[in-house]
C-alpha cells in the first residue's frame, strides 16, 4: 500500500493527513509535501492513517520536522497510534523534539 497525503490549509495552518505506509519507498512524498507548503505558520502531521513505518520513514518524519522548524513553522504530530508513538519513544524523538509536539495519541493498534 502506498502513502497518500491529503493537505488541508486554512488561515496559515496546514494539516497533512498521511495514510498508508511510511517507508523507504514513500518517504519522499512526505518530504515533497512538506517542502511545498508555503505561507503557513503551523503544520499538523496527522498520522492516524499510517499503518506501518520503517527506519527511513522515521528518519523522514525527523527530517520534515527539522526542516519546518528551520522555517520557523510550528509543528505538531497528531492522532498518532500508541504503537507508533512507542516506536518514536524508544528512539527518543519526544526527548529531542519535545513531548508537546505529540498530541492526541490514540490507544490501540493503528
Amino acid at each position, binding site marked *: 500500500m502506498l502513502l497518500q497525503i491529503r493537505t488541508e490549509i486554512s488561515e496559515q495552518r496546514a494539516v497533512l493527513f498521511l495514510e498508508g*505506509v511510511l*517507508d*523507504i519507498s514513500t518517504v519522499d512524498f512526505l518530504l515533497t509535501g512538506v517542502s511545498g507548503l508555503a505561507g503557513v505558520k503551523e503544520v499538523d502531521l496527522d498520522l492516524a492513517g*499510517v*499503518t*506501518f*513505518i*520503517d*527506519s*527511513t*520513514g*522515521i*528518519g523522514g518524519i*525527523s527530517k520534515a520536522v527539522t526542516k519546518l522548524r528551520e522555517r520557523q513553522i510550528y509543528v505538531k504530530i497528531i492522532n498518532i*497510534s500508541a*504503537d*507508533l508513538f*512507542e*516506536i518514536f519513544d*524508544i*528512539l*527518543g*524523538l519526544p*526527548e*529531542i523534539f519535545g513531548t508537546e509536539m505529540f498530541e492526541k495519541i490514540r490507544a490501540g*493498534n*493503528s
Partner: protein
Amino acid sequence: MVGIGVGQQADLPDQDGWVTIKNGQVIVCNPRGCGKFPTLTPDKNLQVFLNGEKIVRTAFVHEGDSIKLQPLNTEPFLNLEVKLSSDKLKAFLQVRKKPGKRYVVEDIPPTGEATVKASIAQVIWPQLTFEQVRDLLHQNQVVYGINEEAIRQALELEDENMSIEVAAGQLPLPPQDAGIVYTFQNSGRFQGTVEPYGQGNPLSVAVGTVLAVKSLPVDGKAGMDVTGKIIPPRPPRDEPILIKSGVSLIQDGAVAVAAVSGKPVLEGSIRKYLSVQPVHIINGDVDRKTGNIKFKGNIVVTGSVLDGFGVEAGGSIEVWGDVLHASLYANNEIIIHNKAITARIQAGGLSSQYRRIYGVLKHLADRLKQLLSSMEVLKRQPSFNTADLKLNGEGRLVQLLMDFKYKDVPKLVNDFLSVLAETENWPQQELVELGRDLNEKLCNLGPLRIKNQAELELLSQEVQQTLETLMWLISNTADVQVGYVQNSVVRASGNIIVKGQGSIVSELDAAGQILISGGKVRGGRLTAREKIQVQELGSPNDAQVIIRLLDNCCLDANIVHPVVIIEHGADHLVIAENCRRLRASVGKDGDLRLEREYPGTRKEL
C-alpha cells in the same frame, strides 16, 4: 442358630424371660405372665441376624425366633512396593501388612439382657517369602547391590508398615584434580645466601630453578546404580601451569622452571600466570658513570640515584640509598630505603590511564546494552516495518538510534580514543584494537556499515571483555615505600608509605592509602582514595597542607597545626586552629564530616 423355646404359661406368676449363649448356640426362654421378654444387643466383632435381618441395636427375642450369630473374621492383608531413590543408588522395600483374625462368640449365662460379643480366637499374619521379595525387586529392575540379610530381617519383623533399604548401588570414586604447588612460595629457600643476588634481595631464582610442580589429574572409578547401570565419574579437572616470560615448561607441562635469573612473580586473580622478571643490579650509584637506567624487569640500586638521572623499570625498583633530584618510574612497586629529595616517583605504570579508560568503557558498555535492547524492542513492534533493514542492513536502525536516543555513544568512543592517544606504546594491544573497532563502527558513518545486530553484540562483548581485563589491571596495585620525602612528587596506584620522619612540601597521590604513621607532613598536597593517616599535620610556621579525599577516603591525624585545607569534591573545610585527633570523613550524604579535640574539650563540626 435358632432360639429354643422353653414355654409361657399365662396362669403362672409373672417371670421375666431370659436368653443364654453356649458354644455359639442361643437359647431363649419366654417370660411368664406379664414378665419381660429377653433382649439381645450386638457388640463388636460379630453380626446378629434376627429372623434373617441384621440387627444393629437392642432387640427383644422370644422362643421360635431364628437367631444367627456371625463372627466378623478378617483375612490377612499384604502390600509390597519397591521404591528407588532419585539417583537410583538405593532401593527400598515398602511393606504394608495387616494380620487376619478369627473370632468365636463368647458364652453368656442366662440373662434378661444379653450383649453378644466375639473374641479373637486366632491371629493369622500374611505370608511373605524371600522369593516374593526377590521377584518383586527383579520386576523393578533392581539387580545390583541387593542386601539379602536386610531382606531376611524384614521378613521376620511383624511391623504393619515398614520401609527397608534392600539394595544399595555404588557411588563412583571421585577423580583427583590437578593441583599446582609453587615452590618459591612459603619457603625461605630462595632467600639469603642460596641464590646469587645475595644480601637483602627479597626473592630471586637462578636459571633452571623449579618454580612450580603440577600433580597430574587422576581419573575416578565408575560406580553402578541398583538397576545395574554404570555411573561414570566426572572427568578430573586439569589445571595447566600458565606462564609468561622467563619461565619454561618441561615434562609435558607438569614442571615449570626459570629460564632466566630473576624475581619469580605470580600474578592474576583467577588465572594465575607465572613469570620470572629479570633483575638488573646497579652496584653503587646511578650517576654519570651509569647514565639513565631503563630495564624491562626489576632494578635494584645498591647506592643512590643522583642529580638529574632517571630509572625506569618494567617491574619494580629498589633503591638502597637516596633519590636526589632524580626520577623513578616503575610498573610495579618502588622502595626507597632512605630519602627522596626533589624527586619524581611513579609506581604502577599506566594505572591511572587504565582507571580513566575503565570509567569511559563502563559507561559505553551500559549504553551499548541499552541500545541493543532498544533494537530488540523496536523490531518486535507490530507497526515497525523491518523490510528495509533486511535489504540495507540493520546499521540503519543503529544509526537512527544513535541520531536520537544514543547521541552520547560516539562521544564516549571519542573519550576513549583520547585517553588512548595520550600513550604511545600500550602493553595491551587489545585496547588499541578495541579503539579501532569502536571508531570504525560507532563513529561518523560507521553505524551504516553494520550489517546486523550480531555485529553490534560482538562489539558489546568485546567491550565487556576489555572491562574485565582492565579490572584486573587496576586491581594490580603498586606501592611506594620511602623513608622521607621532600619537595617531591610521588604517585602510586596502590599505597604510599613514608616510614621515617615524614613528607615536607611534597605532592603525594595514592589510589589506595597514604600512611605516615610516625611522621610529619609540612606543606604540600596529599590525595588518596582510601585512607590518609598522619602523626602530625601542618606546621607551626604556617606551611599550608591540602588534603584531598577521593571517594570515601578518611583522614586521621594525631596533631594538627593550621592551616590545613581538607577537600572532597567541591566541598572544602579549613582547619585554622590547633587541634588533636582530627578525623575527616565523608558522610552518607557525601558531605565532609569533621571530628577533632581541642585541649580539654571535644567538638564535632
